[in-house]
């Protein structure tokens, strides 16, 4: 049997008046018939006619009752349609048979209903049954096997009867074709729509990120499985409730409400970090998006970041501990050396002073390395935050050069600094910028042979401050120009052993400069030609 479509049956039930109208029309015609022909009411087969009308009007009452109890809905519907056809045929018969051909319009109605409730095949089936029922009645009347009630006192001759029957049958099949075709079309469209709906429902359900749809007042309209997982609440429990107290921990509520209002005006809020109310604390990263089509609805997408947060915290703690452990022995090393150098522990010979100076400088170097490590871990976790303030870049540069005088003197490097007058102020994090610059300068010192020069210039140019550090060092080959800024990269490892270094300095410098929306690059004619590091900082 054909599949029965419950959904469309329900839709059809709303149009049940069609049946009623049909029967009212029958009653109306009967009254006209009665008055026009002034027939003897007792001569008309009143009781069977009225019964047929009544049955036809209410044939779908028991049908509706049975659809809720019978499993073979297809068979039930076919039976219903056949009963329909038989009743219609009888009504036509009582109303005047072939002369009442007008009323055969009732058959196409059944054909259309078959299309709506079942399928294209059902349309043809009903057309076929209707043709047989219709021609059977006409034939039975024609051969006087059943009594004929001639309408308006005339009777068509055989040829006309045949013509009308043939035309009607053709009409039935035509209606069946149209109805079947549109049924297929609608069914195809419905199926496609349902497939797409199912697909997007599945996508949403399988998303690992939580998805909540909110109405304009912040009530939960829909959630997916991930939200149930994160909160431990079921969909039924929270649909229709205000999201703020239901999902978020008290500390996050205000932040959420602010973001929610902002999302409604701006359309989109990203990177909101919130805590959920839950058995175990759950941190989420949420985005809010105003839906374009569906009124003022807002979609909240929530990603569970508890694990990342825990790891991040662990990492921070680890680094903080390691730094502490490394810096503590360094304190006494450099502290005692300082005391000795200052003669606090008795007289020191020139040679001892020299050696102690080396120890002190190396301790300072070690401290720098530990600092880099700390910076590096912050860059890695993306937590390098700038605290910008308006400053003169050249002041920061000069300070760094001053601090590095001991290293410059040790290698007898001649440093030339050219600073343009009247440079504008720039918004920079002074501490970070000085770290970046000291890394660059430190690098230049490291690779410049004893007694050679380093040239530094600070200029402004079209909205940028440009800082150039030109050394007479070993230079960099073309293919390595980009690589020098990579983490832990050392251009020549044999050379590195001589000069030392962990390959973090330039990478940190780049990170800091780029955080300032600046650029950094290096130019070099090749090995032996020295290299020039250039970085720019935008003048705000």
């Amino acid at each position: 049997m054909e599949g029965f479509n419950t959904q469309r049956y329900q839709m059809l039930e709303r149009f049940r008046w069609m049946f009623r109208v049909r029967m009212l029309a029958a009653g109306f015609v009967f009254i006209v018939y009665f008055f026009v022909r002034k027939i003897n009411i007792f001569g008309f087969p009143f009781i069977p006619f009225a019964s047929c009308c009544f049955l036809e009007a209410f044939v779908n009452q028991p049908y509706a009752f049975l659809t809720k109890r019978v499993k073979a809905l297809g068979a039930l519907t076919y039976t219903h349609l056949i009963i329909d056809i038989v009743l219609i045929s009888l009504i036509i018969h009582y109303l005047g048979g072939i002369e009442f051909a007008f009323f055969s319009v009732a058959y196409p109605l059944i054909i259309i209903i078959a299309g709506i409730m079942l399928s294209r095949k059902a349309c043809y089936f009903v057309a076929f049954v209707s043709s047989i029922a219709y021609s059977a009645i006409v034939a039975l009347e024609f051969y006087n096997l059943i009594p004929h009630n001639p309408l308006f006192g005339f009777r068509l001759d055989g040829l006309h009867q045949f013509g009308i029957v043939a035309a009607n049958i053709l009409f039935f099949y035509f209606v069946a074709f149209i109805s079947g075709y549109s049924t297929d079309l609608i069914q195809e469209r419905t199926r496609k729509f349902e497939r797409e709906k199912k697909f997007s429902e599945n996508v949403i359900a399988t998303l690992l990120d939580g998805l909540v749809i909110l109405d304009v007042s912040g009530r939960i309209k829909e959630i997916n499985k991930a939200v149930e997982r994160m909160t431990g609440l079921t969909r039924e429990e929270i649909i229709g409730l205000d999201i703020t107290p239901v999902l978020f921990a008290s500390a996050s509520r205000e932040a959420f409400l602010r973001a929610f209002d902002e999302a409604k005006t701006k359309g989109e809020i990203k990177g909101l970090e919130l805590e959920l109310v839950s058995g175990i604390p759950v941190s989420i990263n949420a985005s809010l998006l105003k839906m374009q089509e569906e009124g003022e609805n807002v979609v909240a997408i929530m990603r569970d970041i508890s694990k990342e947060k825990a790891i991040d915290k662990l990492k921070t703690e680890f680094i903080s501990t390691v730094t502490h452990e490394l810096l503590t022995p360094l304190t006494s090393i450099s502290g005692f050396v300082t005391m000795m150098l200052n003669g606090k522990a008795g007289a020191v010979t020139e040679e001892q002073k020299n050696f102690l100076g080396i120890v002190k400088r190396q301790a300072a170097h070690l401290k720098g390395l530990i600092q880099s490590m700390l910076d590096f871990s912050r860059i890695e976790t993306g937590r390098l935050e700038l605290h910008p303030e308006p400053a003169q870049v050249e002041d920061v540069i000069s300070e760094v050069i001053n601090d590095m005088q001991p290293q410059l003197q040790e290698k007898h490097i001649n440093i030339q600094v050219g600073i343009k007058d009247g440079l504008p102020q720039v918004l920079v994090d002074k501490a970070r910028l000085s770290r970046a610059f000291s890394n660059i300068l430190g690098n230049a010192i490291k690779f410049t042979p004893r007694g050679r020069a380093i040239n530094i210039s600070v200029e402004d140019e079209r909205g940028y401050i440009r800082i150039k550090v030109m050394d007479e060092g070993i230079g960099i080959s073309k293919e390595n120009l980009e690589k020098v800024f990579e983490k832990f990269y050392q251009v020549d490892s044999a050379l590195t052993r001589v000069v030392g270094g962990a390959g973090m300095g330039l990478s940190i410098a780049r990170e800091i400069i780029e955080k300032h929306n600046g650029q950094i690059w290096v130019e070099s004619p090749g090995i032996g030609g020295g290299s020039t590091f250039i970085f720019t900082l935008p003048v705000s």
Partner: protein
Amino acid sequence: MANKIFIVEDDLPTVELLKFALQSEGFDVAVVHDGITALRSVEKEKPDLILLDVMIPGVDGFEVCQLLKHNIKFMKIPIIMVTAKVRKEDRMLGFEKGADDYISKPFDPIELVSRVKKLLSEKDLKGDSEPK
């Protein structure tokens, strides 16, 4: 009478350094190695200034600082926090807890001594101006 400096620090070489630096400048020095002992003995020692490490066993330095600064008996004793924590946030936290100065490791002992002297002279000035 020489000023008494109370050192709260668990790393022995650092204690030695602090002791040496301060004693060579003529200060009296008392040393404890953890937070709880520090809180217990501060009354007995009556120091003029406290050098307080943050990462010490038991009660940490921030808490010790807060407890002392909330106690009317000890609140006037200047506290210098000494720590290897170098982050700005930690520094801010130190001042929030009432620390008078903050010095990060590795420090220059000569600079430390001069800061100690400065704080003590400030304290003396304040003490003089206060009505008895």
